[in-house]
């Protein structure tokens, strides 16, 4: 058995290795995206989806990726799997070195969050072809890891006693996984807004604009909209559960299950915004742009809770381990 210090060092090396692999994956995805740039998009009409009885909207399918683009897209996916494996091993080594679950401070949360985003992406990739999404997902992953190893880094060690609770494992795992999904959904939603804007420009007789080359590479605005929604609909119950698990933990640690601590307040705000998003879609039929803005607002609240509240607002949840 290697010593704790060796394991901690190994963990760092693995995290750097994963960042390298993510970076190369990003390059491969970029090549894939750039292949055929400038070529005229082949737009195929698709039979209308079985919808809720509304008039079938004219839909577009992504044109088949050019062979070269497809190849580098595959390389990107392979590298993505590799990078995610490195990251998983790095997180595991960190946990072994500290003899605990490896999410006790912001550095560790960030690594876990980057892993969660990647995991959500890879799980989706098992069910459908999302090579086009790779480059957009790898960006926040690299950003998160970059911040983690530079600004937020703290060395491996034991946890403060408040964190000795199996509810930590449950609550934080649920929160990180739902956060990863919100992030992937947010990326899809931003992409949706870009494509939707191009569609509107084209409909108004304008040029597609600088991002026009994306159109043949990614699904239609409609499909992006639906994908963004599905991810949230699937993960919202988990986020709800994460908040409840947090409340159970707070009850056993602090003697109250809810105390409007800043962290709790922002978890609530995030929850309410996403609940509003689901409502707006389900009951008053908001889809598309307006729903997209609500969804991004929800993600912004989630991110603020993570970076903003941990670093700038003091509360009982001061476990960031930064500074």
């Amino acid at each position, binding site marked *: 058995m290697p010593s704790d210090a060796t394991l901690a060092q190994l963990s760092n090396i693995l995290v750097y290795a994963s960042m390298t692999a993510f970076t190369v994956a990003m390059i491969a995805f970029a090549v894939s995206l750039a292949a055929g740039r400038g070529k005229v998009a082949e737009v195929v009409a698709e039979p209308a989806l079985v919808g809720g009885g509304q008039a079938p909207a004219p839909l577009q399918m992504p044109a088949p990726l050019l062979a070269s683009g497809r190849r580098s897209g595959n390389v990107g996916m392979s590298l993505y799997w590799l990078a995610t494996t490195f990251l998983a091993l790095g997180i595991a080594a960190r946990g072994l070195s500290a003899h605990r679950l490896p999410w006790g401070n912001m550095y560790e949360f960030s690594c876990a969050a980057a892993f969660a985003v990647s995991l959500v992406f890879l799980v989706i990739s098992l069910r459908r072809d999302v090579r086009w999404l790779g480059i957009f997902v790898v960006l926040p992953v690299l950003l998160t890891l970059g911040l983690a190893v530079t600004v937020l880094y703290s060395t491996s060690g034991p946890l403060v006693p408040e964190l000795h609770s199996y509810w930590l494992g449950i609550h934080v795992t649920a929160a990180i996984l739902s956060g990863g999904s919100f992030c992937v959904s947010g990326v899809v939603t931003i992409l949706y807004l870009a494509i939707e804007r191009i569609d509107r420009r084209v409909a108004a007789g304008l040029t597609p604009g600088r991002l026009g080359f994306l159109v043949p590479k990614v699904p239609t605005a409609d499909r992006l909209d639906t994908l963004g929604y599905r991810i949230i*609909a699937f993960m919202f119950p988990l986020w709800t559960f994460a908040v*409840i698990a947090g409340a159970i933990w707070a009850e056993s640690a*602090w*003697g109250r299950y809810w105390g409007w601590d800043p962290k709790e307040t922002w978890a609530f705000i995030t929850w309410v915004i996403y609940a509003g998003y689901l*409502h707006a879609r389900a009951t008053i039929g908001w889809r598309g742009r307006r729903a997209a803005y609500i969804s991004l607002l929800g993600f912004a609240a989630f991110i603020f809770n993570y970076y903003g509240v941990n670093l700038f607002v003091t509360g009982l949840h001061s476990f960031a381990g930064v500074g």
Partner: protein
Amino acid sequence: MSDPGADLSTAPATPVVPIGFRGWLRWMWRALTSMRVALVLLFLLALASIPGSLFPQRGSKPTEVNAYLAAHPKLGPLLDRIGFFNVFGSAWFAAIYLLLFISLAGCVIPRTRLHLRALRARPPIAPAHPARLPGGIAWVSSLPLAELGPQVLVAAADTLRAKRWRTDHVELNSEVAPKASGFVSAEKGYARETGNLLFHVALLVLLVGIGIGSAFGWKGQVIVKEGGGFANTVTQYDTFTAGRLVNQSNLPPFTVHLDAFDITYQAGGPQNGEPLYFAAHVTSSSAPGASATSAAITANHPLGIGTARVYLIGHGYAPHVVVHDRQGKVVFDDLVVFLPQDGNFTSQGVAKIPDMTPQLGLQGIFLPTAVVDPVRGPISVFPAAQDPALFLSAWRGDLGLNSGVPQSVYRLDMTHLSRISIKALRPGDTWTLPDGSGTVTFAGVAQYATLSVADDPGKGIALASALTAVVGLMLSLSVRRRRLWVRVSNSGSGGTLIEVAGLTRADSTDISAELASLVEGLRGVAPETKE
């Protein structure tokens, strides 16, 4: 029909112009229970919470509120008046969530009624030409309708029932061409609405649980020194809050005694000084004189006494200070609670000794592991009491205890005091005050625990309803409500026309796979005839 949300909405299709008082009432009720207003209220709730997270709140950080008010003499009182320092107890916050929950009740009750009816109703009649629906499928089989029709319908109904669709089977209504036709209609996914209603009702019950907690719950905080204890009465707590319906003179009469406080710290390494483990070893009894039991309270492991729970939420040092006056009489002999200022337990505290003339005030810094830093002065470099020191400054004059203004026990009111001297003491040291008025002895140091005692009779309800809400949500977001129809009719050329179609909500996955599997089975019964 295709949008279940539409027939579930309680909102009027067009705004009615209200007539008279009752008209207005009805109009307001409709508006309140409409989805748009509910959504606005939902977002308002999120918006209203924000100041509660950015400004210090009276309930949790009263001292920070006062500091804010002092630092912002203009803005502070204004914010105070509109409730920014007590957001979650403010009238406007309550107004938002109460309106939201009224709206919720007004929405859920009619929806429950509709849903119960839908659960008993037959699936809707098939459209005249299902194949004209998006995704509809049609084919012709050469056998005559009178013969093939019933077979197809029975096969369809059996298949669908086996897959737990609720089906309705309507036989051929006429044997005569060209009107003859029959259908099977099927519906599935009622659990979506059931789950959705469960979720919304659970939210209402959650509010009830929270309400019970805030009406019948109470909470107190008390600092207990090693060797000391407290009884569960309001006067023994340093702070105490209780719901409006709590009988404060009749709290359960338990007692808790702190035998010892135990803590170990990480020594060395990057996390030097982080606590590894702490525990308050206590003896408690449910009433004075009742049998006593021993227990350890640790982080995340409160002690339950009856329905109340005792939590360990903080700890610190209490130096033992003894003061003798000029005549050698003991005028002060106590463990003085010092409040920690940093992670290494550099702690501050004061002792007030009114029984001397002039009165004596001692202001101190306690360092569990003392080092005098050339820049920062005396600080502690490790949280355990490895090398304790007490730095005292002595003040003489009038402590101001009789001024009528309540004083903090952690601060001296310096207005009528003047400092006579300062001194660093090690355990056992005695300091003879330079004016000869007496001596101060640092006799040793004990620890104290900050305990929080709480009883929330609503929390069980809150937990159960919150978990129910999750289950309801999962049903509501994963089950898809869908309808499916099979219609057989005369093909017009002596054969049978079979039409199959289905509908789901727009956001759900399409039903084409289910349709395809059904069609495949039916084609076995009624093979397609190529013209």
